[in-house]
């Protein structure tokens, strides 16, 4: 059982992810905008963070949040899973597999596409928590 924290502007996605992960006994915390993310995650003692990419005010808010977490001493080692409806032509996931640029461009550990495939989500999250 772990503390998992989700940041997504879509409350339905938060609900769906929660349903799937709570079925495996995980505790879910969430917020729907990028505000005070680092502080909230430290407070929540998150073991894993799930980030959406595109937020209403910023196309790349997810990337910015990921970088912020990586630059903070307390949060830099928390596994990050990125979740997005957009993966046309491997736009993000393709870059994700480009090891040379991972650190600068996509500082996350895993990338999953929406819609959420429950089984896939469970197996990716349990791998990341190991």
């Amino acid at each position, binding site marked *: 059982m772990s503390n998992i924290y989700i940041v997504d502007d879509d409350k*339905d996605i938060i609900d*769906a*992810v929660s*349903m*799937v992960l709570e079925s495996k006994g995980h505790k879910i915390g969430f917020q729907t905008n990028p505000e005070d993310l680092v502080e909230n995650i430290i407070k929540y003692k998150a073991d894993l963070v799930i980030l959406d990419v*595109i937020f209403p005010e910023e*196309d790349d808010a997810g990337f910015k949040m990921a970088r912020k977490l990586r630059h903070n001493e307390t949060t830099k080692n928390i596994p990050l899973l990125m979740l997005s409806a957009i993966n046309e032509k491997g736009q993000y996931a393709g870059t994700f597999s480009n090891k040379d640029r991972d650190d600068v461009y996509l500082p996350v550990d895993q990338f999953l596409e*929406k*819609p959420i495939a429950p089984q896939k989500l469970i197996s990716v999250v349990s791998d990341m928590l190991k």
Partner: protein
Amino acid sequence: MSRTNTIAIIGAGKAGKSLLTILLQIPGIHVKYMCDSDPQAPGLLLAKRNDVIIQQDPKSEEILNDPEIDMIFEVTGSEDVFDYLQNNKRPSCNIMNASMAKVIFFLLNSQQEVAKELREYKLKLAERVIERTDELEIVNKELKNQIEIQRSLNDKLQEINNEKTKYLLNATHQLKAPFAAIQSYVDILIEGYTDNLSDKVLSIMKKIKSRCVLLSTLIRRMLELANLNSAVEENIIMKNQNLNDIVRKVINSESGIVEKRNIAIEFTAKEDDNSIICNGEQIETLIQILVDNAINYSYDDSEIEITIDRDSSDRIIFSVKDYGIGIEEKDLRSIFKEYFRSYKAVEKYDNGTGLGLAIARRIARLHQSDVLVDSIPGKGSTFMVPFSGH
């Protein structure tokens, strides 16, 4: 000229004046004296104006004794004067009479003419050079302007392209995000993360899911087509890629459905290296579409043959052969039209978008190729794409 030749002209008549006029223009010649007994002689005024010493006596002792004088021109026409000068000049001084002076005068005149022409020619040449330089400058300026215009147009195009890519990305997100939530809930229900569903509800949920899959494919394909029709940067990037690798990747992605329907995909590549210069993502889409079609229109428990071969002109031929429903001859042209689907195709597979082959052809044409088809209704189809090798 190494040294100055000093000259005295005896006789300031018409001939003397002409001679003086010419000699004054020749560099290296200094006319020191002009001499005429007639103070009104026409040459004297010119001489005075040019600081030539005027003498009245044609037999002037001063001239004869002046050691600077190298030459005396005698143009009075008087033999008596000439003889006198001839006999009394210093040995180092030369003397010329009127007729000899005439020849010299002629030569000098011609030289003056030539020099004048040369000067005029040089002047004209200089004018031409200036003219051409001006022209060049104008052309240069125009070129610079054009480059500037071109550059700003390019910037603008780039800007439009960026905006378009951004727009497409946003449009994709706006379409896909709410839809992803629906799909996620459907999967959660089907996979039993909530209460167990009755068989009737479950079967309806599965139908919803299937329509969701169609809709999401349709959204993806429409955006792909929109994207292909614009010259966004990702469409132009061409790299050397081995077709074999792309085909294997696509075949791997199909393993689930293929297993479920017991369809055997057999892949043969004659060469290990079938590299082509292409946009890898587009070619993957193209191959994915053709392989998807082969699977969707195949019967269960059948076979699909994928080959990469070389023809006589060393072109790389990609082909997918299925033993499925085939295509009626009347439909062969229509299958590449956007949204066209034959009744038989809909009957066999109702989740098609009608966009796959339109996209496949567009991609092939962006790679200077085309999608070719050969089909027997009820027996199966073969789709081929020839690529010029690397």
